[in-house]
C-alpha cells in the first residue's frame, strides 16, 4: 500500500514536469521560427525613418504605405503576376506529364523502368547552379529567353520527377482490382483514368500540385538567370530595392511578407501530407 502511493506520487511528479517540458520545447522552437518572420512583418509596417532611427519592437506609427507602394506600382506587382504565371504553367505541365507516367510506374513492369525511375530522381537532386548557364544558352538559342514558358520549362527539371514520385506513392495505395473491374465493365483506359482513377487519388494530385507550386515559387537562381524584364519574378525584383538613397527597407520587408502569403494560405490544406511530399511520397 505504502509502495503504491509512493509509486503514484513519483509517477505524478514525473509526468507533470514532462507535460511542461513538452510545452516549453515547442514554445521555444516556434518562437525561434516565428521571431525572424515577425521582425520582417514589424519592419514592413514601419516608415523608413522609424526603421533607421529608432529601435522599436512594434511599429509606433503604423503605416501601410509600404504595401501601397508595391500594390500600386506595376514594376512591383507585375513581379507577383510573373511569378504566379510561370508557377501555374509549371504546375500544369508537371502534373499533365507526371500523371500517366506515375500510373505506369505504379502498375506495370517494363523494360528499363527502374533505371528510368532512378534517372528521374537524379534530376530532382541536380544542382540548379550546374544548369544555370546551359539553360541560359538553350533558351536564348530557341528564342524563349525572358518568357514565362522558359522558366516554367526550366523548373520542370526538378518538379516533374518530384510529381512522378509523389503520385506514384499515392497510386500504389489504390488496389489494382479497381482497374481490372473497370476494364471488365468496358471502360477504355482514358475514360477509366479520368472518371474513376483521378477522383480516387485526388488528394495525391493536390499534394503533388502543392509541391510543384512550392518548389517553383521558392526557386530563384534559374528564374533569375532566365529573365530580364518581361517575366522577372518578384523574388528577383526584391534584390533591386537599392536606390540612390540606400535600401528602402520598409518596401523590401513588405515585398518579403507578400511572398510568404501564398504558401501560408494553402499550407493548412496539406498539413498532414507535408512530410509525405518532402519524402517524395514515401512516408
Amino acid at each position, binding site marked *: 500500500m505504502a509502495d503504491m502511493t509512493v509509486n503514484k506520487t513519483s509517477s505524478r511528479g514525473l509526468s507533470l514536469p514532462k507535460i511542461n517540458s513538452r510545452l516549453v520545447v515547442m514554445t521555444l522552437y516556434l518562437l525561434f521560427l516565428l521571431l525572424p518572420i515577425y521582425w520582417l512583418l514589424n519592419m514592413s509596417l514601419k516608415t523608413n525613418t522609424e526603421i533607421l532611427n529608432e529601435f522599436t519592437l512594434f511599429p509606433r506609427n503604423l503605416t501601410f504605405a509600404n504595401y501601397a507602394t508595391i500594390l500600386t506600382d506595376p514594376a512591383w506587382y507585375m513581379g507577383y503576376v510573373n511569378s504566379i504565371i510561370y508557377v501555374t504553367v509549371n504546375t500544369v505541365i508537371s502534373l499533365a506529364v507526371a500523371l500517366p507516367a506515375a500510373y505506369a510506374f505504379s502498375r506495370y513492369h517494363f523494360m528499363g523502368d527502374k533505371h528510368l525511375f532512378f534517372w528521374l530522381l537524379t534530376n530532382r537532386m*541536380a544542382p540548379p547552379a550546374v544548369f544555370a548557364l546551359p539553360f541560359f544558352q538553350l533558351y536564348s538559342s530557341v528564342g524563349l529567353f525572358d518568357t514565362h514558358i522558359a522558366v516554367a520549362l526550366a523548373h520542370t527539371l526538378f518538379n516533374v520527377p518530384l510529381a512522378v514520385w509523389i503520385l506514384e506513392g499515392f497510386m500504389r495505395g489504390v488496389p489494382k482490382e479497381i482497374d481490372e473491374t473497370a476494364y471488365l465493365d468496358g471502360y477504355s483506359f482514358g475514360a477509366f483514368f479520368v472518371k474513376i482513377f483521378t477522383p480516387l487519388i485526388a488528394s495525391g494530385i493536390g499534394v503533388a500540385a502543392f509541391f510543384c507550386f512550392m518548389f517553383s515559387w521558392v526557386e530563384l537562381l534559374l528564374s533569375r538567370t532566365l529573365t530580364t524584364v518581361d517575366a522577372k519574378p518578384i523574388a528577383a525584383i526584391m534584390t533591386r530595392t537599392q536606390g540612390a538613397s540606400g535600401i528602402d527597407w520598409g518596401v523590401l520587408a513588405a515585398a518579403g511578407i507578400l511572398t510568404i502569403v501564398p504558401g501560408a494560405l494553402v*499550407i493548412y490544406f496539406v498539413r498532414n501530407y507535408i512530410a509525405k511530399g518532402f519524402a517524395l511520397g514515401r512516408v
Partner: protein
Amino acid sequence: MEKTVNQKAWFLVLPVLLLVAFSAVIPLMTVVNYSVQDTFGNNQFFWAGLEWFEEMLRSERMWDALGRQLMFSGIILAIEIPLGIFVALNMPKSGFWSSFCLVLMSLPLLIPWNVVGTIWQIFGRVDIGLLGYTLDALGINYNYTQDILAAWVTIIVMDVWHWTSLVALLAFAGLKSIPDAYYQAAKIDQASRWKVFRFIELPKMMGVLMIAILLRFMDSFMIYTEPFVVTGGGPGNATTLLSIDLVKMALGQFDLGPAAAFSIMYFLVILLISWVFYTVMTNLDKREG
C-alpha cells in the same frame, strides 16, 4: 502489389521522358561539350581533352570550396537531425495543437529562398535587426559582413531555422506510424523513456530519418541562394560554397571550360548520393510490401 509486365507502359512514360530529356539531357550535353573544349572567343572552340578536369583537380579554389561545403553540410546535419528528432518527440500527437504546430513549423519551408536570406540579413544587422541589435547590446561583437565566425554562425543558424522543421515533420510522420500496442508493451516491461526511444521509436523512425539525412545532405550540398543573399560568399571567400563558386565562375567570369568541368564533377558526386538515396527508398518500399 504484384505488377504485370507491359511494354506498352512506355507510351505513358514517353511525355515525361521527352520533357526531361529536353530540360536535362540537352543542357548537360552542353556542359560536357564545354568541359572538353577551349575557346579564344568568337565562338571558335577547339579540343582541350581532359585539361580542364586536371586543372580543376589541381586548383586550390575548388578544394577549398569543397572543404567549406563539407563542413557546412556536416555542421547543419549534426544540428538539424538531433534537433528535429527532439522537436518531433515533443510535438502534440493529435488534435488542434498538432495541426497548429504542423502549420507553423511548415512556414519557413515555403518562403522563397532569397527571402529567407533577406530575413536573416535584416535580422542579423546590428543597426536594424533584432538579433544583431540584441547581441550588440549584450556586448558581443557580432558583424557577419566582417567577421568570419559570425558569418558562419549566421548562415548555419539560418539553415537550421529554415530546414529543421523538415526533419521534425518526417520524424513525426515516422513516430505516428508506431501502433499504441508497442508503447503498452513497453509500459508493461517498465521500460525507461530512453529505452522506449532507443528500442521502439528510433528503429521505427530509421527509414524516414535516412530520407531526412539524405535530403538535407543533398539540398545543403547545392545550397546557393540563402548564403549568397546574406554574405555574398564573404567575408573574403569564407562562405563561398560549391554552388556559389560555380555560379561566380560560370556566369560571373564566363570561364566556361573550368566551370563545365567543375559542374560535371559536382554532378557526379550528386549522382552517387542519389544512388544511395534511391537504394534506401526502394528498400523502404519493399519493407512496407
